[in-house]
C-alpha cells in the first residue's frame, strides 16, 4: 500500500460505523475505490458488526422479569400495588387469549408449538402477520368509511374506540376489522406508508379498570410489537419496520388515544 494513505484507522472505523457526515462518507467511499485493501477492512468491520448484532439481538426479545419492570416504574409509595394490578390484568388477559375464538387463527404455520400460551403481544403479531400480508383483503371496512368502521367496532367492543391518525408519521389508515379474542372480540386498525409497509394496531378491551400505562416491547416471529394498557384497553402496535420508528409511532398513537379518552366527545 502507498505510504501516504489519506485515511486513518479512525476514519475507517467511523465510516464503517456510519458515524461520518454524508459529505465525508462520499469522499471516503471515493478513496476506498482506489484502495481495495482498505475497502476490505471496512467490509470486515461491517461483517463483524452484523455478526455481533445477530449474536446479541435475541437477548432483546427475552421476557422481562417483573422485578425489572417494577423497578422501571416511578417508585412512589402506594403506587406499586396499583401498577402491579395493571400488569397482572394484562398478564391474565394475555394468558386467557388462548380462547376458542382464536383457535381458527392458530392453525397456521405461525404457531408451530401446540399448546404454546398466546400472550397479547403474540396474538398481535400473529394477527398482524395474517392480515398485513393480505394484498386484497387486509381489512373488512376500508378507510373511506372510517366513521362507519369506528362506530361498528366500538359497538362490537362495547367501548368508544378511536382510530389514531398517523398521517404525520407517514402512515395512512387502510381500514379495520374485527378479530377474534378470548371472551370478547378485538379491533384491528391497519395502516400503510408510501412504501406499502403495513403496521397494525390491535385494541382489546380488558375486564377491569386498571388506569395504568406502560410500554413494553416484544419481537414475535420477526414482527416487532409495542404494547401497553391504557385505562380499560390493551393496545399493541405491530409491524416489520425499524423498532425506533415503531416506538415513535406508538407514542403518537398513545398520545392521541389518551387525548381522545380525556375528551370522549372530541372527534379526530
Amino acid at each position, binding site marked *: 500500500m502507498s505510504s501516504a494513505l489519506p485515511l486513518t484507522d479512525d476514519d475507517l472505523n467511523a465510516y464503517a460505523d456510519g458515524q461520518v457526515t454524508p459529505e465525508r462518507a462520499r469522499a471516503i467511499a471515493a478513496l476506498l475505490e482506489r484502495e481495495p485493501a482498505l475497502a476490505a477492512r471496512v467490509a470486515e468491520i461491517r461483517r463483524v458488526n452484523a455478526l455481533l448484532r*445477530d449474536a*446479541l439481538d435475541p437477548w432483546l426479545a427475552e421476557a422481562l422479569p417483573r422485578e*425489572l419492570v417494577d423497578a422501571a416504574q*416511578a417508585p412512589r409509595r402506594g403506587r406499586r400495588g396499583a401498577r402491579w394490578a395493571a400488569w397482572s390484568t394484562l398478564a391474565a388477559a394475555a394468558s386467557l387469549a388462548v380462547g376458542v375464538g382464536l383457535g381458527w387463527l392458530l392453525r397456521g404455520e405461525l404457531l408451530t408449538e401446540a399448546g404454546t400460551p398466546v400472550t397479547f403481544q403474540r396474538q398481535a403479531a400473529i394477527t398482524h402477520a395474517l392480515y398485513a400480508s393480505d394484498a386484497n383483503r387486509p381489512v373488512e371496512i376500508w378507510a373511506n368509511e372510517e366513521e362507519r368502521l369506528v362506530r361498528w367496532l366500538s359497538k362490537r367492543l362495547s367501548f368508544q374506540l378511536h382510530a389514531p391518525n398517523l398521517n404525520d408519521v407517514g402512515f395512512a389508515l387502510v381500514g379495520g376489522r374485527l378479530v377474534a379474542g378470548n371472551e370478547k372480540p378485538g379491533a384491528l386498525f391497519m395502516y400503510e406508508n408510501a412504501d406499502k409497509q403495513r403496521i397494525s394496531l390491535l385494541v382489546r378491551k380488558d375486564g377491569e379498570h386498571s388506569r395504568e400505562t406502560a410500554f413494553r*416491547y416484544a419481537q414475535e416471529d420477526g414482527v416487532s410489537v409495542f404494547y*401497553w394498557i391504557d385505562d380499560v384497553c390493551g393496545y399493541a402496535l405491530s409491524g416489520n419496520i425499524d423498532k425506533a420508528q415503531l416506538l415513535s409511532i406508538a407514542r403518537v398513537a398513545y398520545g392521541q388515544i389518551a387525548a381522545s379518552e380525556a375528551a370522549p366527545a372530541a372527534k379526530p
Partner: protein
Amino acid sequence: MSETLPDPDLLAALPRLRRYARVLTGDVNRADDLVQDTLARAWEKRRLWQAGSDLRAWLFTIMHNVHANQHSVRRREQAESSLDADHGPVAGWEIPVRASHDDRVELSEVLLLIARLPNDQREVLVLAAVEELRYDEIARVQGVPIGTVMSRLNRAREKLRRMSADRPAPLKVVR
C-alpha cells in the same frame, strides 16, 4: 431538569439495559441485579436527566458508573486473586438464539472472541457496533475523551482481526 422520567421510554430501554448489563458483567443473574441498581439510581438522580435528551445513553452512563463502583469494591475484596483483563467475562453468557447448529457455533464464536477483549474495549465495541451509539455518547458513557473511545475501538477491532486470523475459518455473516 426533569421531575420525572418517562416510564414508557424507560420500559422501552429495559431490554437494551439488560443486554448491556450482560456485556458488562458477563453473567445473566448479576446483570439483572445491575439493571435493578441502575434503575434505582436513575430514579434517585432523575432531576439530572435533561428532558428531551437521549434517555438510553444517560441510562448506560449510570449503569457504567454503578458497575465500575461495584467492580472496584469486588476487586478490593479479591485483592489476592489476579484479574486478567484478557480473560473477560464469558462463563455466564448464553447463546440466546433460535438458530441452526452451525449458526450457533458461529454466534458462539463471536461472543467468545469479544469475551477475550479487555473490558473497556469490549464495551466500546458493543456500544458502537450493537447499540449504535455515537462516539461522543460512548465517551460520555465511559467518562473518557472521544479520542480514547476511538483508540479503544481500533484496538478492539485489531485484536478481533488477529484472533480470527489465527482461526481456521473466517468469521462469516449469519443469515
